[in-house]
Each structure stands twice: as C-alpha cells, then as structure tokens.
C-alpha cells in the first residue's frame, strides 16, 4: 500500500452499494465517511435505493449519520409497503461531514435479489448568517451586518462604527478623522439614527492655508437641547464648532444651522452626547474657497492689472506706471512690480507709487546754454531750448534746438536726436566795423 495524493475534500461524488447494480452480497458491513470543506454542508440525493425491506430496517439497512446523530435509516424500495424509503427528498447534513453505513444479513441468500443503492452527494454552501443564534449566549455571529460568502461569512458594521478585532462585533468609531480634501461630507455616528450609547467624537477639517471652510448642515438636524429665554441651551448634547483664534460655538436644537462661513482653514467639530436623552444627530457637506484679499487701491499715474471684482489667495496683480512715470517702492525705483494675495488675506507687498521720471540736467552746452521753456525740474515732458552765445557762436545746423524730456529719460529733439547740439564759432563778423567818414 502507498498513500494517495492529498487532493483535499471532494465537492461532489457518487456512493454505491457493493456490486451495484448487481445485487449486493449478504453479510456486509460497509461505511463511507464523506467530508467537504468547512463552511459547506453535504446534500445527499438517492437516485436508486432497493434494500431488503424489513420493519425498522432491522436486517438490511443504509444508515445516514452526522457524527453520532442518525439522520435516517433506509431500506425497501420505492413501492414497497414496508421498510423506509427516502423518496426524492435529499438529505442535508448540518455540517461538513456525513457518514453512510450499509449492512446486510445472511438470511435467504438464494432469494436475495435486491441491488442496493446509488446516491450522489455535493457540497452546498452553508448560509451561516441565517443560522439561528447559538443558545450558549455568545450572541449572533455578527453584531450588526452578516455577509454570507462561499464557504464562510463576513461581519460588517454600520456607518460610524468599525469592526472589532474579533471580526464579529462593532464599536463606535468617530475619531481620528482629519478631513483635508477641499470638500467632503461628515455626519454623526449612526445618522440619521441616534447612537445607542454616549458618544464623544471629534472631526477636524483642515485644508491648506489660504482656503476657508464653509459648513453646510443638512436640514435634518437634531441635537437635544434645553430651551431657555436666551435660546436653546446645550447642557448635555452638543456639537461644538471651534475655529482658530475664536471662541468655540455650541450647536444644538432641532433647527439646522444651515451655512456657516468659518473664514478659517481649520475647523474642529466636537460632538458630544451622554447616555441620557436622544439626539438623532447631524450631517453636513463642507466646501472651501480661497481667502479674499482687499481690493487694491488705485495707483496714481499707474494701472493695476488684472482688474477683477474680487482677488483671492494666490492671485497676482501687477502695477504699471503710465508713460513718463516710474515705479517706486520705499524710495527706491523698481523695474517691475507684482504682489500675491497671501493665505492670510493680505497682499504680500504694499502697492508701489508712480513717480514722474526726470531726465536729469540737460547736457551743458559749451559756449551756449539751456533755457527751460516749460516743465518742472527736468521732469517728463519738460522742454528746454539750447542756445549759443551769440553773436560769437551759432548752433550747428539748427536755428532753434528744442529738447523734450521723453519717457526713456533722454532729452530728445523733434528730430529724435539725443546728443546735445554744438555751438560753432561765428567767423569774420566783428562786433564793430572800421568806419571812416573822411573822403
């Protein structure tokens, strides 16, 4: 003999009496031990049974047992008047085992023509969840939700609860929730049903700095309160809303607070009930929006872009000066300017000023000078005129040379000339001529 390979329990099979469909021998004592995987039952269905009939199946019989419990003892055939035939009804084992014992005696062996039996068996998934509660007082398989699976079952819990390590009972669970998404949904344990026990739950909504949270409670709001002349008081049950740097606010009663603009990026909700009273709880959706910065003021002789009706966190604005003006910050000229709306709702830089540019002193003119025609202190659009010290010098190539302070901070003439003019000497024209009157 050698061991058979371990193929594990069979899920189905056929059991037949010895020599079936030939008549079975006399003096038999044969046993079959059937088993299927845990979590399954065995369903046994007879396709044929023909065993010598006797009262109480005393002589020849097929006995079906679950452990020591006899599920049936069969003999006879389908139409026999005596004996006990199983008919077409299958036999279901309470567990994953089943034993068949077949016996025959040695009476009248020459007349013995019964062929025995043939039966099929198969594993049937056991619905543990519909099984009655054990009588040992250990309670149901699952304290809240039972889910049948092939060969097993799973326990699960309602919202606000979580499965204990024993994998069958549930415990209230509402802490440890940090909600950092920009929007979400929160509700009290068991909502809209009241929790069975006192709860003390904390929910923290914490989003990125620069965003503000808006709470939107649904209409179905119920937290036990005590009405006073000053309004509902929340002595035993409450939902406390805490915002940074502000006094906590306790909510209770039967009226939904509706929308609450927290203006904060962190909101802590503490829900407390005791074992007395009844609060059905609450539910809310939260959303977030970027914090606002104040509208930028106008910049004299400058322009703020882009022009929006509101400015939010991370928005940038730029300031440009009108032509002829320069950006000044803290007394220093800057090339360009932009500022960002910060998470605290303030612009990260104050707006600059636009100061009029100046071209500096006009280049002095050798043997000449500069006369201001209009403008102020060499500022933008100031106009100067160069002249030479006449009659000894004259301007090279020009009668009147007028220069204007332009936006590029250069003195330019109408001909777009930047360089200052030149005085050239006047030759051969003495201021006094020799005159003789004598003839």
């Amino acid at each position, binding site marked *: 003999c050698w061991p058979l390979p371990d193929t594990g329990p069979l899920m189905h099979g056929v059991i037949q009496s010895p020599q079936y469909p030939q008549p079975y021998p006399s003096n038999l004592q044969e046993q079959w031990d059937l088993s299927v995987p845990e979590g399954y039952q065995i369903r046994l269905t007879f396709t044929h049974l023909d065993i010598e009939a006797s009262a109480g199946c005393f002589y020849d019989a097929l006995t079906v047992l679950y452990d020591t419990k006899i599920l049936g003892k069969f003999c006879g055939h389908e139409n026999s008047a005596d004996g006990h035939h199983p008919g077409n009804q299958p036999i279901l084992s309470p567990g994953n085992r089943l034993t068949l014992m077949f016996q025959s005696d040695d009476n009248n062996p020459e007349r013995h023509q019964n062929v025995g039996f043939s039966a099929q068996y198969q594993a049937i998934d056991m619905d543990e969840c519909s099984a009655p509660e054990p009588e040992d007082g250990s309670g149901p398989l699952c304290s809240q939700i039972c889910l049948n699976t092939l060969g097993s079952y799973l326990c699960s819990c309602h919202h606000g609860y979580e499965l204990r390590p024993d994998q069958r009972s549930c415990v209230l669970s509402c802490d440890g929730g940090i909600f950092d998404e920009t929007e979400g949904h929160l509700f009290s344990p068991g909502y809209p049903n009241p929790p069975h026990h006192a709860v003390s739950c904390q929910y923290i909504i914490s989003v990125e700095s620069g965003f503000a949270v808006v709470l939107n409670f649904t209409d179905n709001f119920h937290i036990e309160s005590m009405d006073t002349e000053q309004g509902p008081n929340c002595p035993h049950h409450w939902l406390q809303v805490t915002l940074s740097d502000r006094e906590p606010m306790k909510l209770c009663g039967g009226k939904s607070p509706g929308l609450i603009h927290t203006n904060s990026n962190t909101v802590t909700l503490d829900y407390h009930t005791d074992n007395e009273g009844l609060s059905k709880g609450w539910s809310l959706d939260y959303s977030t929006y970027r914090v606002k910065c104040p509208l930028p003021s106008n910049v004299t002789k400058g322009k703020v872009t882009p022009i929006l009706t509101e400015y939010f966190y991370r928005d940038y604005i730029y300031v440009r000066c009108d032509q002829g003006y320069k950006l000044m910050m803290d007394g220093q000229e800057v090339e360009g300017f932009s500022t960002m709306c910060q998470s605290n709702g303030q612009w990260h830089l104050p707006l600059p000023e636009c100061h009029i540019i100046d071209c500096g002193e006009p280049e002095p003119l050798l043997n000449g000078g500069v006369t201001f025609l209009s403008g102020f202190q060499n500022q933008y659009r100031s106009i100067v005129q160069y002249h030479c010290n006449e009659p*000894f010098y004259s301007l090279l190539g020009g009668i009147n040379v007028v220069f204007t302070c332009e936006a590029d901070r250069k003195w330019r003439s109408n001909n777009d000339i930047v360089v200052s003019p030149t005085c050239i*000497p006047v*030759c*051969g*024209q*003495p*201021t*006094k001529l*020799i005159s*003789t009157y004598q003839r």
Partner: protein
Amino acid sequence: IIGGSDAPDYTIPWQVLLNIDGGRGGGMVIGDRWIMTAAHVILKKGNQASKEAVRMYMGLTNFNSLTASPVYAASIHIHPEYNNPTDVNFNNDIALIKLQDSLTFNSSVMPICLPPEGATYITGVMGLVSGFGITEIDGRSISTNKMKYVQVPVVEQETCSNSITLSKKTRDSVPSLSNNMFCAGVPEGGKDSCQGDSGGPYALRDNGRFWAAGIVSWGVDCGKQGTYGVYTRVTNYMDWINKTMQEN
C-alpha cells in the same frame, strides 16, 4: 603797417601778435584751437622755433607786454613744402599753430573765416591787412605797440610780377612770385604791410564776412611806389589746412 590807422577795439578780433625769441610777427585766429601764420615767422633760415618759444597774444589793440597774458602752442605745423633757408623762396609760406587751450570767443577774440568754396581774388577789391609791425612817421620807420590796419586792393598778378622783375634788376636776392602768392597794394605806394606784420591777415569781405584771403609774407621795401606787398594765397592751401586740423 604803412599808411594805415590804429585799429579800434573789436574791429579786427582775429589779429594775433606772435612773439618768438623777441621777434614780432602776426597771425590770425581761424578756430578755437588754431592760429594761422606764415611759415617764415616760425622757421627762420632753417631753424624752427620751439613751441615753448612761441608766445601769442590776442584780443589786444594796444599791446603791453607787461600786462598781456600769452597763449601757448601745443604743436606747430609748417607746410611740408616750405623751403626757405636763405630767405629767397617764400613759396608755401604758411603754418598752423595748435593751441594748448581752447579759446572762448567774444568781441575781442573771434576767428576769421577760411576762404569759402569758390572764393576768388578780384583785382582791385580792397582787402584789410593789419598788424603790430613797424609803421612810418615822417619818413622814419617806427615800432608800434598799437595794432594798425590799412586797406589795400588786390593787385593783378602780372602787374605784381612785373614789379618784382623790375626790382630784381636793381637788387640782389629778390624772391620770386609764385601762383601760391598774390599781391596787394597801391602803385603809388604809401599803404602796405611791413616787417613785424608777417603772418598776419589780409582779409577780404564777402556777404558781410571777412575771410582770410592772404597771409602777410614778403615784399620789396614797404609802401614804396611801384612795389606791392606779397601774400600767401590761402585758397591754394585749403586741403592742407583742413587735413592738418582734422588730423590734429
């Protein structure tokens, strides 16, 4: 200046008085850094005066060496073809002096114009010659510290040439007249430039402006009948003048 008059203030503001090792010469202002004169004023018998030796005075009509402030030369540029080791060849008698400091012009000091494009020397046209050279009173040569001037006309080149030829018959070593020279004066004499005026201006006037037509160069005697003053013909040197000033 023979037969002339004292120049009133501000009438010849381009006149320059040169003093080189005690010798006196003339010059004219042609730019805020440039004086034009005769080469022989600076280069005498082959010896060129150093620039430090050249002292220039301008803006004066009555020269007083004790009070006048000289102007100094930065560089001296004698015409490269001037070659007069024995004082008989005044061809190319022209020189430029660059000043150390720029001049600022006013009524006293003003440049004379260089010859305009197409300038001509028309016989008979009166020109103005001036200087601090010797003058003549009662037939005697007198040194003077007053700037004088006299107006003399441009003389026909052939007339002048004949006059010089005639002089050569009675005198030795009379220089020759070239096309780089012209003559001015009156045939009867009595009006002329003279020693000490060399390098000074002979100015013609067109359209209200005086231009430097000539540089006092040489002559046979001064103011004598039948003789004329000989002047460097400036128009012939415009290229050299412009080139020299641009390159320096």
